[in-house]
């Protein structure tokens, strides 16, 4: 911004030392910024070195298509059960957090009074600030028994006696000590503020003239909110969804504590059984390996890094996707 010492008038020129000092400070600060690149490079190097060494022993095809994860006992390294566990938690927590977060964002941006907003916004942010280990504990000790008291529930979708179709009953069985449902619920609660705060920013950025135009045409507040403001802010909302899902994928402690350590392939066709039983996510498997203290090396220890690289690749892709959505579809008002 300021181009000092360009005037050429001797008396106005800063002394050589001051110029050098300024340059030195500038470089020092730039070095701090460049350090962040080094962190990314460090992550990639740290992960890929050992992960490649792992994949030279266990073929990547076996790793990515194997349906059994049992690193210690059977030495089988198929990642699909872990991916399934991660997907179960992600899908069900997203089912909770995405609609709730968007509704909260619409309320905060369109309906809430200034006073309500000044209380509710920090309160919502606390949801994301609670340590995940406490979420995990609450899921294990309080949420599971609370929900289990209503279970099992069976709903007859197709009653017996209809001759054409086989009878079909949807059963939500009782919960195990470790189960995916309580983990999904707490992860869902945890990522609500991620959706609500980013979506609210997007909704508030919609200019008032669009709203006024809607009212001028005789629309109700409901119509203006749902047909004008929300569609205009789609890009921001989608970005918030992607970021929240990415956060749910990377969530570790809550799912480790509440969902347990038994990798499972998904159950079909009764999908609800997946929720009631224990399973293991990618992150929980990493915690298990690290906690087992097998630092001697070997494929199990290196599998930690292969899992980390997989996780890093997934979340990085999603973050870049969110950024692209935001840029590509950004409305210029």
């Amino acid at each position, binding site marked *: 911004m300021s181009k000092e010492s360009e005037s050429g008038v001797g008396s106005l020129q800063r002394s050589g030392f001051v110029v050098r000092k300024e340059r030195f400070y*500038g470089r020092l600060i730039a070095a701090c910024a460049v350090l*962040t690149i080094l962190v990314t490079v460090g992550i990639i190097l740290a992960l890929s070195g050992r992960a490649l060494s792992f994949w030279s022993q266990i073929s990547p095809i076996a790793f990515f298509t194997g349906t059994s994860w049992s690193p210690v006992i059977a030495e089988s390294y198929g990642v699909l059960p872990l991916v399934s566990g991660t997907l179960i938690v992600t899908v069900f927590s997203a089912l909770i957090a995405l609609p709730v977060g968007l509704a909260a964002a619409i*309320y905060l941006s369109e309906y809430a009074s200034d006073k309500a907003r000044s209380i509710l916004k920090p309160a919502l942010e606390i949801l994301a600030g609670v340590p995940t280990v406490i979420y995990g*504990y609450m899921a294990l000790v309080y949420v599971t028994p609370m929900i289990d008291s209503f279970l099992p529930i069976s709903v007859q979708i197709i009653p017996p006696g209809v001759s054409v179709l086989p009878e079909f009953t949807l059963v939500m069985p009782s919960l195990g000590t470790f189960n995916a449902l309580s983990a999904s619920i707490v992860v869902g609660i945890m990522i609500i*503020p991620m959706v*609500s705060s980013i979506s609210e920013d997007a909704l508030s950025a919609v200019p008032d003239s669009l709203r006024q135009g809607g009212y001028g045409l005789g629309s109700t507040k409901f119509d203006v909110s749902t047909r004008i403001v929300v569609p205009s802010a789609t890009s921001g909302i989608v970005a918030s969804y992607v970021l929240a899902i990415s956060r749910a994928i990377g*969530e570790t*402690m809550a799912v480790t504590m509440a969902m347990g350590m038994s990798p499972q392939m998904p159950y079909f066709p009764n999908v609800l059984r997946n929720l009631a039983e224990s399973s293991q996510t990618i992150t929980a498997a*990493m915690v298990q390996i690290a906690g087992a203290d097998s630092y001697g090396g070997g494929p199990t220890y290196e599998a930690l890094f292969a899992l980390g690289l997989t996780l890093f690749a997934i979340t990085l892709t999603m973050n870049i996707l969110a950024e692209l959505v935001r840029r590509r579809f950004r409305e210029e008002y």
Partner: protein
Amino acid sequence: MATEETTSDQLGQSTALRIQQLKGQLFEVALVAATLVGIVSLLVLFAQISNDAFRPRTASSTWFLVYFGTLVAPTAAFTLYARRRPAVRTANALAFAAVFGGLLLSFVTYVVVDALSPYDVFIYAFFASLPPVLVLAYDRTTDERTYTGPLIPVSIIVGVGVAALVDGPISGPLGVAAEWIMYFGLVTVPAALLVAWLTASRRGRRTGAVAGGVVAAGGLAVAVASIAAGVDASLPIVVFSAFAVPTGYVTWWSVKTNPEGRVGIAGPFVILGGVLLGASLVDRLGIESPDSYLTPTLILESWDGLTASNAGVYPQIVGSIIIVGFMAVLAFPVGIGAAIYLEEYAPDTGLRGRLATLLEVNISNLAGVPSVVYGLLGLALFRRTLGFGTGIVVSAAGTLGLLILPIVIVSTQEALRSVPNDLRQGSYGMGASRWQTLREVVLPEAIPGTLTGTILALARAIGETAPLVIIAVATTKYSPPSGLFSSATALPLQIFAASANAKPEFRHGVVPAAAVVLLVLMLLMNATAIVIRNKYGRTN
């Protein structure tokens, strides 16, 4: 016919209108419900955790009556009284900050210094602060100030280096001196200097010197009194300097400047007095108090995995404080520096402009990297590359520091962005250089915003568990870390480890109590950040 038609038409319209209205109302109710559902369910869970930790049902009803009389009723009466009197509220807020901030500061200072050995901390503090003080003194006497600015950080680094060299030889002979002398040097001397400086800037030099002298003399008197009484003088000195001195100063200041609101000073003492009075009454009258798990044992003892009533998390609390504190020292300068570069230095165009865009994208991606992955980075960096031992303070702090770096950068950037550009232009117009503008104009304006962001980052770091598990920090240890290279443990790790313990007195007792401690720490930090943001935010 015509009239009939219009009425029916109007009627139809009004029904349609009413449906519309109902739809809108239902929608709003649904929105409110959605906003509240997360908050309410968290509150329900918190209530269950605190119910397990405090066990209020085990107390007799007299216990509740006593505390209602000594604590709740006076506090409520005082709050009602202060509600409509802004002067009282101002004084009350100041007194609250001084009293409870002072208590917290005393606790943190004492446990950290006690864990790290007061002699070592004193040596490092002495050698790190002496050179910059000398440089500042020189700066006062001369007009040639070109070199003093950069000399201060250099002299601190040199001082720390000297301290590291002489620590071994000196700490032996220094050990002859009593511990309380170290605490006097570490806490009372800075408190006295601070009071002297604050008073001098408001009341002139002489009063300042007297005030500082009074504080120092008070510290000595406390030491003499406690030695005469036969107790170790260390803790009394810390409490005097970090609690009594700020409280006294704020009281004096409020009485002088805010005579209308001076009743407000009593606010925190109503609460403290209520607690003490209630406790003594309960003790005297032998009232059945709740069989709570949140006891002094929990906070001051070390872990016991067999007997719940003996289990404590003192080493874990101190470990968490030391890890997070050292992490702040590592991460905040770098994070703030990076934010300054991106906001104030980086050009928008050209090759370096592209670099800046790349940096921004990279930082937002780093913020989205799962914390377990940072654990792997820490494992590879500190254990494999640098060859540090397992689970030492430096690795834990470094790993968490890398994790919170993006949060610090983004919040500092926001704070810098909210500083109006006119201020910068004004400063440049008066001939200030970029660095001078930054140091004298931009950074002071951005302090509240930066502080908010950094406190939130600390709150995030203190609850972080997954990266510590990955770098194999021990879950249970029986003594707090004795130095930066000694192994440590942290509070969330203990909660994680103990959650596997299925005994009811752990599952529904000690672990919820430890969780309450962690939650209180985190909520305190969040509340501080929110208060700072509301007080200084959006001044433009």
